[in-house]
């Protein structure tokens, strides 16, 4: 992608977030898409590019009445939307489409119109992971953390401080699911889920959706919204089996996606005003800060505990409250993107003053995939 050549001109979440039993998964996609189109004054018939995950792109295109010349069904979990944004930018650069729509919708809590979860018992994960008594992501995504703690010396209190700081951000956001303040003791006394992880270190499970509309920087001038330019992008995948990561204390996919995006953006970490790091569990911002290069190996726990990422701190992270307190439908990456867009537009509930560059970093599966999108409001 050519830096600053493509802009996000439409962005919106579903009208309601949280518990939305009256809408099925595809209805949540459509509600978000229609809100994003209205945000920038377009109709579905103006769209000629469709990217989505969780539904097939043909399903979304037909449902919304779109005749696309470009589609992308990349499905690598919750960061799929970061990859869609990256691919849409390349498609617009190449002239494959002019107006790209990226949609997400998920009835994570109410399970209306959702597919069944689980893979084949003949898959490698079905043979070599499923028989060991797994209870989904809380018992798997967290598997490397004791190793990380042994190698770096990170304490349980530092890990707990991630949830405390993000609750502070959530308290500033009227749409957050949880807003009441919590302490490190509250986190460490909450119900044990999968040692060393307790309830308040695990994400929410909610219903919702979001959508983005991208066009070239030239067309962006015609829209009523403040353009948010794509400065740098990156993506990678590692393994669908968490037990087969190269090193369970760091994500190769994070390092590849992040370094690719920073190189394309041509910026240093000191240039960054705002960061989103997909937080399905409390260790994700810790891995993310290290693997993206904001801090050194083993430093992220102390960095967060010292309030560097908290309201008023020098590096605001997860300013919507994150998956731990704002919302998490299952594929949270779209909500991280939405918050970065709001920060770049200057419309976030917890707005970072004068923020010009936002790094939005997603994970897919359980360290299976990663996508990084760096945005700016500076043409």
């Amino acid at each position, binding site marked *: 992608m050519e830096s600053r050549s493509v802009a996000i001109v439409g962005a919106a979440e579903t009208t309601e977030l949280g518990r939305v039993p009256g809408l099925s998964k595809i209805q949540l996609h459509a509600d978000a898409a229609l809100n994003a189109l209205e945000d920038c004054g377009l109709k579905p018939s103006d769209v000629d590019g469709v990217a989505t995950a969780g539904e097939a792109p043909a399903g979304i295109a037909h449902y919304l009445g779109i005749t696309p010349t470009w589609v992308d069904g990349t499905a690598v979990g919750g960061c799929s939307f970061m990859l869609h944004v990256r691919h849409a930018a390349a498609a617009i650069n190449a002239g494959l489409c002019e107006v790209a729509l990226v949609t997400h919708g998920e009835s994570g809590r109410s399970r209306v119109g959702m597919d069944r979860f689980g893979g084949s*018992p003949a898959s490698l994960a079905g*043979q*070599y992971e499923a028989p060991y008594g*797994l209870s989904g992501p809380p018992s798997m995504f967290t598997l490397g953390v*004791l190793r990380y703690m042994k190698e770096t010396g990170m304490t349980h209190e530092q890990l707990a401080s991630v949830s405390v700081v993000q609750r502070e951000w959530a308290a500033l956001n009227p749409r957050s699911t949880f807003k009441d303040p919590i302490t490190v003791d509250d986190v460490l006394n909450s119900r044990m889920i999968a*040692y060393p992880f307790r309830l308040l270190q695990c994400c929410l499970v909610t219903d919702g959706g979001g959508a983005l509309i991208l066009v070239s920087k030239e067309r962006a001038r015609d829209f009523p919204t403040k353009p948010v330019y794509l400065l740098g992008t990156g993506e990678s995948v590692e393994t669908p089996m968490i*037990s087969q990561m190269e090193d369970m204390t760091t994500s190769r996919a994070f390092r590849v996606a992040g370094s690719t995006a920073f190189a394309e953006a041509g910026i240093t970490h000191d240039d960054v005003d705002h960061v989103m790091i997909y937080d399905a569990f409390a260790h994700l911002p810790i891995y993310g800060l290290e693997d993206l290069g904001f801090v050194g190996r083993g430093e992220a726990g102390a960095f967060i505990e010292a309030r560097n990422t908290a309201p008023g701190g020098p590096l605001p992270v997860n300013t919507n409250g994150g998956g731990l307190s704002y919302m998490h439908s299952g594929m949270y990456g779209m909500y991280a993107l939405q918050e970065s867009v709001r920060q770049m537009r200057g419309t976030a509930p917890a707005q970072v003053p004068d923020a010009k560059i936002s790094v939005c970093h997603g994970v897919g599966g359980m360290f299976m995939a990663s996508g990084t999108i760096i945005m700016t409001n500076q043409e």
Partner: protein
Amino acid sequence: MADDDYKGPVPVPTPETQDFWDGAKRGELRLQRCGEDDCDDVIFPARSFCPGCGSRSVTNFTASGKGKLYSYVINHRPPPGFGPEPHAIAIVELDEGPRMMTNIIDCEQTPEALVLDMPVEVAFTPITDEISLPKFRPAGG
């Protein structure tokens, strides 16, 4: 004798993993090694080629069954079929290099008993007449 109490998912072997499950039934932990002199990677899970160098020359061999506890969680919400008590889901690093997911048996399922890097050895648990799961227990225990 199969464990009649086991109600969890049962692996279905594929052509490239059949040797592993045949070995498990006999009480052997089977891995693969790349046949190229300048590669020599140990491969798990089984493939018909070496992901390190792309060579199709791979041979199956019986591993030592020894390793160390690399990391784990203690699952306090066991899924149906796994009993009411919290149990560890563990990652063991084999002496030959690869890591695999497993359970640690013959050991208290507590942070005090489950010490990272402690030596462990394989022990097979039959769950059907055809499938035995490789699990690990503290070595020399």
